[in-house]
């Protein structure tokens, strides 16, 4: 008497759920995807307090040598020659959208006179809030800076 009925196991790896996992990952990347409007390489100053910058905020970047680039948050940033051009750019953006936030992305070694001109231009253009872009300061770095 043959008690053992022979079962055939299919030689297939179940891949149906693979697509679900992949689509979950896609959704994650789509949600976190933001087009970087300004690709200027700067060493950001480090701060402890860091607020989330609103999406679509306009960018003004200043390199260590004082080169300025501006972006309205939708177009890729373009270089401008002087702070006066920042004023006309900011005035145009504020004219279109009076509550537009501006982000100042500047190198920590930039001499303050360049920053002063940019902030002054933004003030004259009646910008209400600017965000000083920064990287995270850790407690160790803070303590070290405090003892210096």
């Amino acid at each position, binding site marked *: 008497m043959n008690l053992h009925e022979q079962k055939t196991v299919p030689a297939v790896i179940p891949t149906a759920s693979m697509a679900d996992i992949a689509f979950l990952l896609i959704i994650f990347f789509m949600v976190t995807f*933001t087009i970087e409007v300004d690709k200027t390489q700067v060493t950001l100053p480090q701060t402890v307090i860091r607020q989330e910058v609103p999406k679509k905020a306009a960018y003004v970047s200043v390199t260590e040598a004082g080169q300025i680039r501006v972006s309205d948050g939708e177009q890729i940033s373009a270089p401008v020659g002087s702070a006066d051009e920042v004023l006309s750019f900011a005035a145009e953006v504020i004219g279109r959208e009076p509550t537009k936030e501006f982000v100042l992305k500047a190198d920590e*070694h930039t001499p*303050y006179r360049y920053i002063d001109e940019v902030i002054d231009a933004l*003030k004259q253009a009646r910008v209400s809030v600017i965000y000083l872009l*920064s*990287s995270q300061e850790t407690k160790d770095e803070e303590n070290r800076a405090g003892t210096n």
Partner: protein
Amino acid sequence: MKLPSRRVSDEIPTSSMADIAFLLIIYFMVTTTFAATRGLDFALPKDDDQPPVVEKEESVLIEVQPSGDLVVDGRPMLKSEVLDYLKPKLEVNPRKPVIIRPDANAPYGAMVSVYDELRQGADKGVEVRNISIPTQREIDRFWF
């Protein structure tokens, strides 16, 4: 003569779905840059022709030297000592103006660092409500 009937599978072929999805993942992974999207918010005052009148001696002046060192009300001070210096003054007048005035050649990072320190005061029981960073044009127009 009986022809053998071919069985058609009643399943939707989904094996290539994962390939397509992974291609999309790779695209998003390559194009995503985790950009720094955080910073210190700084509310700019309105550019009025007539700013609020503040007695100079009423405010605390923090000067940032080109070396990044601080001089508070004429005295050299470490960044970590500023809040302790401000505490008794703010207890008397919580709205006491604190003015940060960086030198033209001071590094931007030093100014941000002082501003960050003052903003952190709220967590340390020394809330500095009235911080201003006047620009050179404003100083030329209104201070002298």
